[in-house]
């Protein structure tokens, strides 16, 4: 039976169990539900859970474990000369076997009989059915494919039987437990609580997954390229090896990418911080409630626009505008109409990213500034300070730790931003300080190393994970430091 069908059957069993359990509980109580410990629905739910939960766990475990077992048995059954080959070749052979097995399911019995042992005819027949094979199958593969199908069939039957039996046992057992004094609600709530715990641990699992997956892949990379060459190398030249020619190892220096990332981030912060801070100050201290109720959501629209749209804006509007502007300025100044700002440049990417970051700075700082108590302002104003003096001398110092935290979080966003830089910063990994020239970032290189069909074993691909873990660690440190600052220096006004 297919897995969706089994799930459907389990769902039906659950519904039936719920109804039967509820009725049975009511019948025991003689139709007066107050004689029961819990409300009747809980008894039904209890029966349903007992029936379905263990069965579902077995189903999931079986689905995970059985392919491993079956595949290793099939691999073990390969002829000795095949087993002697490299793991990659064995993998290829196994791929053939599994597509053969898939194809044999499609063919009818008569067709299989008529083909017999003719490998070429088999390939043709499968191709006509829409199952393409990479090459002509060898005889042992056909045999293994047959074994694979047989084993899978047996495994599926065993699984179906086991799951259904466990479901029925669970249902029967829990049905007999129902009585006046049985605490069904407590049991059901325990299960619910367990589910809640599992759900909340997914956050932890995700983090562990991120760290582990990146560390293993980056570990493979550092096995090929020494770590110090990666972290302190000043040349980025991954040299896309043509298939097979793995001899050309390229240079993987992180420094030019990191420099580009930080430079673009700096430009972005130079735009976003003054604009965002002053907008926040104006909106929280000066603006009338009406202006504020219009301007604040409008500014936050900037945060809701997908970054790809900013990238496109930079690529088609800001970049060409800066390029043409520079060429006319140059023309007026020197008579030579060559542009000194490239369309893709640090300035373009940084400027547009800065616009994107304005709402992050402004709404975070706005919240923090608004949280500074009224009494501080009143005290300062009462002493004769002007509003701006109050803001500069009293409100901002009080809000400073929070604002710094907000700025650090914004900086971590600038460092991790991808789409704007992919479209607007260029791909040349260079170390230079001219903001009018293109530079590239860590994120751009992650994207460019991983798009396209690459084998998962070459350092050209694996370097993306080393870059990723670097990015992850940098942003993590920034965020944790931001949280730390906010917690440590937060003024307590109570």
């Amino acid at each position: 039976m297919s897995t969706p069908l089994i799930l459907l059957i389990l769902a039906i069993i659950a519904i039936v169990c719920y109804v039967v359990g509820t009725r049975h509980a009511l019948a025991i109580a003689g139709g007066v539900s107050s004689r029961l410990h819990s409300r009747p629905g809980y008894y039904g739910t209890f029966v349903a859970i007992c029936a379905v939960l263990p069965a579902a766990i077995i189903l999931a475990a079986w689905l995970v474990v059985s392919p491993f077992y079956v595949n290793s048995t099939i691999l073990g059954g390969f002829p000795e000369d095949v087993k002697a080959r490299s793991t990659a070749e064995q993998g290829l052979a196994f791929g053939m076997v599994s597509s053969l097995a898939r194809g044999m399911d499609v063919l009818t019995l008569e067709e299989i009989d008529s083909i017999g042992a003719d490998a070429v005819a088999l390939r043709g027949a499968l191709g006509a059915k829409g199952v393409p094979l990479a090459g002509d199958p060898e005889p042992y593969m056909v045999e293994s494919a047959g074994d694979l199908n047989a084993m899978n069939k047996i495994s599926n039957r065993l699984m179906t039987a086991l799951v259904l039996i466990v479901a029925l046992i669970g249902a029967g057992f829990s049905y007999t437990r129902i009585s006046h004094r049985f605490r069904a609600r407590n049991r059901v709530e325990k299960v619910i609580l367990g589910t809640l715990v599992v759900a909340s641990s997914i956050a932890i699992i995700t983090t562990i997954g991120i760290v582990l997956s990146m560390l293993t892949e980056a570990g493979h990379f550092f096995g090929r390229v020494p770590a110090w060459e990666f972290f302190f190398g000043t040349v980025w030249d991954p040299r896309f090896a043509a298939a097979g020619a793995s001899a050309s190892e390229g240079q993987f220096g992180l420094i030019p990418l990191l420099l580009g990332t930080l430079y673009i981030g700096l430009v972005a912060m130079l735009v976003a911080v003054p604009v965002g801070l002053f907008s926040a100050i104006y909106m929280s201290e000066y603006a009338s409630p009406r202006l504020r109720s219009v301007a604040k959501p409008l500014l936050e629209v900037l945060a809701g626009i997908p970054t790809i749209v900013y990238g496109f804006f930079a690529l088609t509007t800001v970049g060409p505008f800066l390029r043409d502007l520079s060429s006319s300025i140059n023309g007026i100044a020197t008579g030579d109409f060559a542009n000194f700002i490239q369309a893709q440049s640090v300035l373009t990417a940084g400027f547009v990213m800065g616009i994107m970051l304005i709402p992050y700075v402004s709404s975070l700082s706005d919240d923090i500034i608004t949280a500074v108590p009224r009494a501080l302002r009143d005290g300062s104003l009462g002493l004769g300070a002007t509003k701006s003096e109050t803001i500069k001398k009293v409100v901002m110092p009080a809000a400073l730790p929070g604002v710094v935290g907000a700025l650090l979080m914004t900086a971590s966003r600038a460092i991790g931003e991808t789409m704007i830089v992919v479209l607007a910063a260029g791909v040349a990994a260079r170390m230079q300080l001219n903001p009018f020239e293109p530079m590239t970032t860590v994120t751009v290189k992650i994207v460019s190393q991983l798009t396209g069909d690459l084998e998962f074993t070459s350092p050209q691909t694996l370097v993306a994970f080393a870059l990723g873990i670097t990015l992850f660690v940098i942003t993590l440190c920034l965020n944790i430091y931001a949280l730390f600052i906010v917690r440590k220096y937060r003024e307590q006004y109570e």
Partner: protein
Amino acid sequence: MTDVVSSPAGVLARPARRDIGIKRRYAAERRFRAYGIAALSFGLLFLALLLWSVVSKGYTAFQQTMITVPVEFSEQIIDKDNERATDPQKLMTANYPVVARNALAKVLGVAENDRAGLRAVNQMISDAVRGQLRDMVTANPQIIGTTQTVSLLAAGDIDSAFKGQIDLNVSENNRKVSDQQVGWMNQLAEAGALGKHFNTGIFVNGNSSRPEAAGVGVALIGSFYMMLIVLVLSLPIGVAASIYLEEFAPKNKFTDLIEVNINNLAAVPSIVYGLLGLAVFINFMNLPRSASLVGGLVLTLMTLPTIIIATRAALKAVPPSIRAAALGLGASKMQTIFHHVLPLAMPGILTGTIIGLAHALGETAPLLLIGMVAFVANYPTTPMDPSTALPVQIYMWANEAERAFVERTSGAIIILLLFLIVMNVGAILLRRRFERRW
């Protein structure tokens, strides 16, 4: 307690007016205020500029130039040797572009032996007519040998020229349409044969290397599948996790860790989730590349922290009196939460979910890494099929060099922004309608 300052006996000398720099300070005040206004206007100006630049470039994408001409489905060209009964491939591979070209050449009066003229005519029609005419013929082979009036897609360059996007003052050699073609275009337009029609293709077509035939249909389906997966997975998991953390979790090191973790996950760059998806879902679990299932799973992990944070805020906002009342009437803690607290927190939870979904809809970077940058022209039927997503489609078109793709890209951005606007307005309305203040 009160210390009355008693002036020393005698006349209190009137103090000289101290210069406290009031003028300078007021000027500083005005300057400071002006900085604020300038900053705010700068932000709003760029919001307007961004939207204007997208809309002004993109609104024309919703119109498409079509050439309506009588097309003769000549048996000579389609099926010269009358083999269509025996060879079904015949009708699939026939030379339909020539059929269309001849039809247009006839209308324009280009002689059949004028090769250069015919080539110029051919350039006015999109290559996509091959599929259009083929579908007509295979659906109804009887039309072979007859003449039908058909609206043909104009080529991308003609489309741009007719919309006035090509500067005709540039020398003829430096632009993609010749003066002759422009003349024909105007001639056809005057005769009413060439005109702009509403472009349904951009909504239903798959990707294409020809801008006039490219659409976001596949991307819309892919994005829809992904949003569905994100909604189905992240809403229940997120709500369950927040209920545990907010209502049940004991305050200890472990829950503290989860808390810090969730806050950090919300700030992890989205591209890192793409790497996670690539390593775990594709490399380890062997799920298919480019499938919307994988995209949905990655976006779910990315959206979860947002939803958890929003849900916890919503749960926190439910006043303790509700809990106390329910507990006092004998409800268990679980009943209190599921029957009373959760329904009251629902508007806040849904608002947070919609905002999280809107964010996920516009996310591009992680999808690039799990191979959704594939050229997909066919509709995916299940979430396991190769597909693409709306923002990824925008990214792919943004990298195309042709002029007409800029218009398409902006058009696709408008569609994306419309979806986001609808979702966000929905969230705001939901909040307005159901928000309660205690």
